[in-house]
């Protein structure tokens, strides 16, 4: 198993193993959250496991991620998050003080997102068999809006919007992990997005789909979209918001911010006519201050994401199979 940087290897694994085994109409779309009709209510449910090194990093920790990640998966599916479950896998000898810090920050994040942790589970594994602490969260939310969201609603001509500067989380983690001696004020962007999503949906009923740009970054989200909707996505490099510190660190690390994980940003595809008001609504919210239209959906070449560079060329922005490996011979 190549470990999953959210790229093609993971996608292939999911499709070949899990979808094959569990295939059913609800699972089939492989969306971030499953939409269920229970009695008269429409409910969204999602689950996510969190493994991150280091556990504590500027701007957050694994506890923040575990709450916000699941809250965000519900939010971008058009649901209002209500309840969470929490599962912990702890390595024998993991300091209780660290566990307290993680749980406290989960509590803070849950309060901020207006959700309750209603059940949980803890397992301890032998020393050396885990990276200190893994967290799994599941979330339940209620689908309040009649909007139908999903890749199959996307049409050529739609605008592609990102809710804020990209790459903060992933670059922060790499700097925190690498002991690179780089002075930086960068912090993870981990944040609950339900409020920002609600603000967007209020003014822009023409939202076609939303996805939080976690593993594999914006490029991976858009590649999945391009393939699922059989459309092209053409990005304008100049329009993509990236903090100068992130750009600088990414350049040093040799990494393209488009492929770097965010934990508090989402991509929205919006009917072109409503793109302006959508960006305005996002920018009015503190979490969306740098929201921007970064590109357009097109017809051809179907299944591809293209990047118009500052130099005027057009690069193919494909999904990576795993970690980026040099290609220049």
């Amino acid at each position, binding site marked *: 198993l190549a470990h999953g940087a959210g790229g*093609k290897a993971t996608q292939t694994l999911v499709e070949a193993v899990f979808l094959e085994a569990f295939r059913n109409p609800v699972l089939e779309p492989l969306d971030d959250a499953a939409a269920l009709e229970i009695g008269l209510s429409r409910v969204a449910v999602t689950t996510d496991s969190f493994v991150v090194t280091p556990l504590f990093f500027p701007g957050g920790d694994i506890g923040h991620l575990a709450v916000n990640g699941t809250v965000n998966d519900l939010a971008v599916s058009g649901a209002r998050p209500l309840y969470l479950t929490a599962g912990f896998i702890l390595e024998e000898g993991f300091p209780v003080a660290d566990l307290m810090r993680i749980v406290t920050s989960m509590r803070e994040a849950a309060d901020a997102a207006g959700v309750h942790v209603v059940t949980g589970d803890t397992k301890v594994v032998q020393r050396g068999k885990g990276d200190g602490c893994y967290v799994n969260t599941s979330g339940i939310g209620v689908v309040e809006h009649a909007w139908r969201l999903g890749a199959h609603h996307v049409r050529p001509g739609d605008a592609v919007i990102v809710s804020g500067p990209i790459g903060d989380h992933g670059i922060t983690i*790499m700097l925190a*992990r*690498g*002991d*690179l*001696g*780089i002075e930086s004020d960068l912090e993870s962007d981990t944040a609950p997005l339900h409020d920002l999503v609600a603000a967007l949906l209020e003014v822009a009923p023409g939202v076609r789909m939303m996805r939080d740009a976690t593993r594999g970054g914006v490029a991976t989200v858009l590649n999945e979209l391009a393939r699922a909707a059989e459309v092209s996505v053409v990005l304008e490099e100049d329009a993509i918001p990236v903090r100068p510190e992130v750009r600088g660190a990414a*350049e*040093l*690390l*040799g*990494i393209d911010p488009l492929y770097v994980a965010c934990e508090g940003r989402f991509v929205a595809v919006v009917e072109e006519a409503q793109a302006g008001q959508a960006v305005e609504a996002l920018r009015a919210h503190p979490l969306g201050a740098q929201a921007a239209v970064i590109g357009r959906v097109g017809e051809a*070449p179907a299944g*591809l994401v*293209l990047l118009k560079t500052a*130099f*005027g*060329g*057009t*690069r*193919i922005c*494909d999904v*990576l*199979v*795993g*970690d*980026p*490996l*040099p*290609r*220049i*011979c």
Partner: protein
Amino acid sequence: MSRVGRDLRVTGVVQGVGFRPYVHRLATGLRLSGRVGNDVAGVFIEIEGTHENVAEFLAALPRDAPPLARIERVEVTACTTRGAGGFEIVTSRGDGTRDALVPADFATCADCLRELFDPSDRRHRYPFVNCTHCGPRFTIVRDVPYDRMRTTMAGFPMCTACRAEYTDPSDRRFHAEPTCCPACGPRLALGDSADPLGDAVARLADGQVLAIKGLGGFHLAALAAHPTAASVLRSRKRRADKPFAVMVTDLRQAAALCEVDETGERELTGHRRPIVLLPRRPHAGVAAAVAPATGELGLMLPYTPLHHLLLRDLGEPIVLTSGNLSDEPIAYRDADRLIDVADAVLTHDRPIHVRTDDSVVRGGTVLRRARGHAPEPIGLPLRCPEPVLACGAELKNTFCLARDSQAFLSPHIGDLTDHETHTSFTEGIAHFQRLFGITPRVVAHDLHPDYLSTRYAAGLDGVELVAVQHHHAHIASCLADNGETGPVIGVAFDGTGFGPDGTVWGGEFLVADLAGYVRAGHLRPVPMPGGDAAVRQPWRMAAAYLPDVDLPVAQRNAARWAPVVAMARNAVNAPLTSSAGRLFDAAAALLDVRDEITYEGQAAIELEQRADPSTSDGYPAAVDDLVLCGEDLLRALVADRRAGVDLAVIAARFHNGLADAVVACCARLREDTGLNAVALSGGVFQNSLLSRRISDGLHRNGFRVLTHRRVPANDGGISLGQAAIAARLTTAVPA
């Protein structure tokens, strides 16, 4: 006197090159009766005459064939005699398999050139004059069989005079498909100028930048000696340092700029007319911006009538470089992309069907295989049991279709991550499949999972996929280039290639044949901090090899040195690499030759240019267990640098030391394997200093050395190697 009859079937490049009139002349000269004609498989001939004359015909046929013909095979069968008669050229037959080959584009021939400058000729100064011995072919062919209706000349109906030539078997233009004249053919245009050619010449003389439509695409042109024209072109094209090619009027002008030896002269004047890399003279009369920091110039002679007219009227050399912005493929359908780059566009109305760059050669070896070569087949050293498509690498991509014992290598395609280039790749594959009637059953691709050529292969249905390791493909390419199948000791030195162990290979000693390889040795791996960023910034490789070095390179990059060293130590986006190209990068950065590059291979190229070829000693490097220690070379280099040794001497000692270590490794491998042949492949072998030293050393030790001639040592040759391997692996071997 008894008469005999023979049926002949000739395959190869025998259409569109004046083959039938040639057969007609030969047969009538020998008083043979019979006929000759084209079909989709090539040329069929029926002859009948005295035993002696028929024998003479068979002997002369391949020997005296027209210059552009390439006979692959002549099958002769006896047939009954039909009685004496004349010899005629019959109309084409449309049945059979598609074995007829589309010719490559060739430079204006001497006869056409005479007409071009003969005031009494009806084609005097006509920029599109051509005949069966010269002119556009591959770039204008839409489909086969090759005839005018299936070329981009279809829109130009022949006038009465042209048609008379076209239908006269004794005329040089008999069935010259693109033939035309001022009355019926394409026309030049430059805006709404009444005199496009005169206007273009005046603008060039004035120092302006011109876009000029050529055979395979638009060029950008500027006066080579003008004080500012070339640098203006550079900044508008956004090409920082990569040298421009120069077109000269004639050999005399070439010799004024460069040292032209016999090989160089043959390459310059041959009908393929590539860009020829030649040692430049110390005070060559071109602006500094034409080819900064290199000791070579790429020269070419005019190859279209338009070039001849321009150069002769202008009287001095011009820069002639691909019409594109940096990183993009050459523009060929329209010049829209060049509007901001060129002051004016000299164009014409003969469409280009296939984008094709200029070929590049040096010392008898092809470095970029494109116009004048494509789509000529390359003979394979084995038969393909099934038709093969090989998808090539990522940068400098070419693809290759193969059937039977023939490989059809595409012209240079380029960097597949550029979308337009990628479109050339996919459309080019479809076009080649049609032209040669090949439907691939086996598809070979690189092991690199993220190469777009790999993605393309993976997306095909109903074919057998063959994944080929990059450096195995390099060695197989060299084998195929030499018509061999191995086994050999293969030295594959290049920039990077995906290794099956998850590291990045590029300085490899393989024991290989077409069926497989063993990695017998390699350069000692070092981290490549930042992945591709380390390729763009050679100083990172200096930091990776010698983190504690106390030389200016560390000071120049002080702010980023420590983090990059930490990335290397902590394995943060720092894959391990055994690349020889990266070792050159480290050396170039340590010697202050170059910290960052603006084109592929720049640091190594500039390091080679600095080296003093008369220095004969080299640095020592350990080769224990066939792991070549590059760090040893660099440490010795640093010591010399501290001691104030001349840069030219240090650069040479580095080259020599690496070469000697390679020879030592080969000698060790010969002891282990008993193999005495060494194949040298990979882009690093375009370094002539290194190549020569290694070849000489191997020869001295009694090795047989295989090097590239017909296909590039760089990734442009990968697809041929993949095809040869796929052919071998799908061949059933008797138990």
